[in-house]
């Protein structure tokens, strides 16, 4: 089937395109971008006043299947993705059982194919059972369909083992994603160390712990010459280390999540468990540094760290509550806030949410070049809506943004030329 997206503002940083015009899709591929296209037998979609861009890619989500299907399934998670404008997600391996072997990878891909919504790119564990002791079988995992490796919520505690992982990954060209946390400093902590920990009477997690861990990863990237990707950067110190490393030519990339540039530790005041995340929400100084890093290229990607939890894990004492929040459907409007605040341009936003995640993970997508798979997101940057439980498609509703009025929303999500989600009538 042919789709003709008419009259939108087409932005594609991969080709430095920003023009008002038409986009033609046929046979699942991008065919043409031009100020005016006429195509017979194409379904015409009016995109006047809307932005048309390469499909958004979220390189860091948790789909909870297998093992915790009461929180999310691959079907509900990918529905939440397409509702948020994401054509593809990379899912982290902390399932039950964890994705540390080819069977689990294949299961995830099978479920994703059945759901047939967003593309799913499995990230497998670096070490068996995420225990930080023995490497997983990188070759087998890659052959089964894993696109990257990460121990997700855990750092690889042993620098020597992390070095081996970076070296061994060279054979298979698999990106390595680091959860940078110095456990000996963070253990037992629940919120940022400082105002939040003092005010709430909870053990804090110091920002320096993240910095120490990022510094180690950067040094290992230098030693091995192999790139390391730092997940969910939350601190000014972390940003500064990455910036300095990049200036020296050390191969490092980084992502942050919308909550780190939208919220501060104050969101946890009142023991609000929906704002309990790891790493914790930090201070305004950190938030500003993150915004700056997104603008100047120090941070390469925005990823949601979408982490669904049911009320079982969240409606409880703060100390007992699970870490994590859902983010797939609020990421785009939160990023658009920074565009309106002139932190970065729309084009840079699309780079951060589409082109760069594709590049870092070495997956398809991130471009509207002719013959590329037709993964396209259409959004209205102005549309106002209120975040309510009913408005969200994820199985879990643990969002600290419930009740917020957002500006901007995905209206159409196209994957491989097929409309997977539409708010257009």
């Amino acid at each position, binding site marked *: 089937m042919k789709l003709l997206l008419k009259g939108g503002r087409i932005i594609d940083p991969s080709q430095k395109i920003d023009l008002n015009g038409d986009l033609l899709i046929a046979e699942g591929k991008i065919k043409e971008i031009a100020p005016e296209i006429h195509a017979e037998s194409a379904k015409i979609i009016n995109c006047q006043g809307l932005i048309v861009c390469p499909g958004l890619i979220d390189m860091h989500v948790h789909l909870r299947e297998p093992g915790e299907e009461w929180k999310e399934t691959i079907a509900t998670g990918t529905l939440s993705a397409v509702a948020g404008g994401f054509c593809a997600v990379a899912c982290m391996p902390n399932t039950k059982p964890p994705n540390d072997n080819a069977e689990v990878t294949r299961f995830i891909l099978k479920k994703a194919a059945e759901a047939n919504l967003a593309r799913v790119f499995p990230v497998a564990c670096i070490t*068996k059972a995420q225990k930080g002791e023995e*490497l*997983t*079988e990188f070759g*087998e995992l890659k052959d089964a369909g894993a696109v990257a490796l990460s121990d997700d919520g855990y750092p690889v505690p042993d620098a020597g083992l992390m070095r*081996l992982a970076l*070296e*061994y990954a060279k*054979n298979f060209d698999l990106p390595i994603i680091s959860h940078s946390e110095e456990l000996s400093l963070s253990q037992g902590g629940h919120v940022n160390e400082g105002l939040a920990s003092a005010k709430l009477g909870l053990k804090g997690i110091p920002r320096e712990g993240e910095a120490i861990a990022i510094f180690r990863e950067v040094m290992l990237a230098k030693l*091995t010459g192999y790139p390391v990707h730092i997940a969910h950067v939350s601190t000014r110190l972390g940003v500064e280390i990455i910036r300095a490393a990049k200036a020296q030519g050390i191969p490092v990339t980084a992502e942050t999540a919308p909550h780190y540039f939208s919220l501060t530790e104050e969101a946890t005041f009142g023991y609000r468990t929906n704002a309990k995340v790891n790493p914790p929400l930090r201070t305004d100084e950190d938030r500003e540094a993150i915004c700056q890093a997104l603008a100047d290229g120090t941070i390469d990607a925005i990823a949601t760290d979408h982490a669904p939890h049911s009320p079982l894990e969240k409606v409880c004492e703060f100390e007992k509550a699970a870490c994590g929040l859902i983010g797939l459907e609020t990421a785009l409007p939160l990023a658009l806030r920074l565009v309106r605040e002139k932190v970065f341009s729309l084009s840079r936003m699309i780079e951060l949410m589409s082109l760069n995640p594709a590049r870092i993970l070495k997956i398809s997508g991130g471009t509207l070049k002719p013959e590329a798979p037709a993964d396209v997101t259409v959004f209205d940057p102005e549309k106002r809506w209120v975040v309510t439980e009913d408005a969200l498609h994820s199985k879990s509703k643990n969002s600290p943004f419930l009740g917020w009025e957002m500006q901007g929303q995905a209206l159409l999500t196209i994957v491989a030329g097929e409309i997977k989600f539409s708010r257009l009538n």
Partner: protein
Amino acid sequence: MEFRKKHILDIASLAPEEITFILDTAEALKEVLERPIPKVPTLRGKIVAHLFFEPSTRTRLSFERAAKTLSADIFNFTARMSSVEKGESLLDTVLNIKAMGADLFVIRHPNAGAPHFIAENIKTRVINAGDGFNAHPTQALLDLLTVREKKGDFKGLKVAIIGDIRHSRVAHSDIVAFRKMGAEVFVSGPATMLPPEREALGARVCYQLEEALKDADVVMALRVQKERHGRALFPSVREYARYFGINQERLSLAKEDCLLMHPGPINWGVELSPELENDPRSVILTQVTNGVAVRMALLVLLLGGE
């Protein structure tokens, strides 16, 4: 030519002409091994001390066979059950054996540089039979002899060495030896076992096995030396076999008339797939025979002139 070396400690200190001379000598002496009574009196009255501070089967037996063929007498020393277990220093051990009249030491030692240390401190000839991760010059020479027999010359040959390069003394000596004689050397294996630099000792480091094997004239698989690592450098033996083991399919990337080599002992099903056991391209047993010839040559060249 006159051979002036007192010791054979590594390949790096041998000039290409010296290597050629050793190989020529070995080739000439190899004939002795084929005689009905394979024994000559060349080294009668000489005493060769075999000092093995680390387990070894083929290197040790090969040196023993070489010495016996040349009618030398042998001291056999193993660290186990010796005064080394009582805490005697390396230097004292060797001085004592020297005092009993050894003319040449063949030394295998787990510490890199141990044979160099002995050569420096004791006025006796030394052949390094393998020291730590450092060097195994007699293995490299027998590999050269095997390739020269089949290929005639080294110039322009592509040699692919697969496996644990970083921790292999065989690989270290082979890379230097083949490079010195004019061949190109490519190494591949799990990146945790490859030298950290893309160009190490002059070998090209390939993270994709195929790149190393493509059009190779010589394919040498190395033994996975689990005992040397101290920690697992790859996730499982199964994965090693699947992604880094040499099998028919991978070997077909190399030239049709390539040579398949392995320094032994082989872990069949790991470095080499069992289907290659009787493969016509394999020269693994020729390597073993040539080992005796090369060691005879070295004994004659180091002791014969005295």
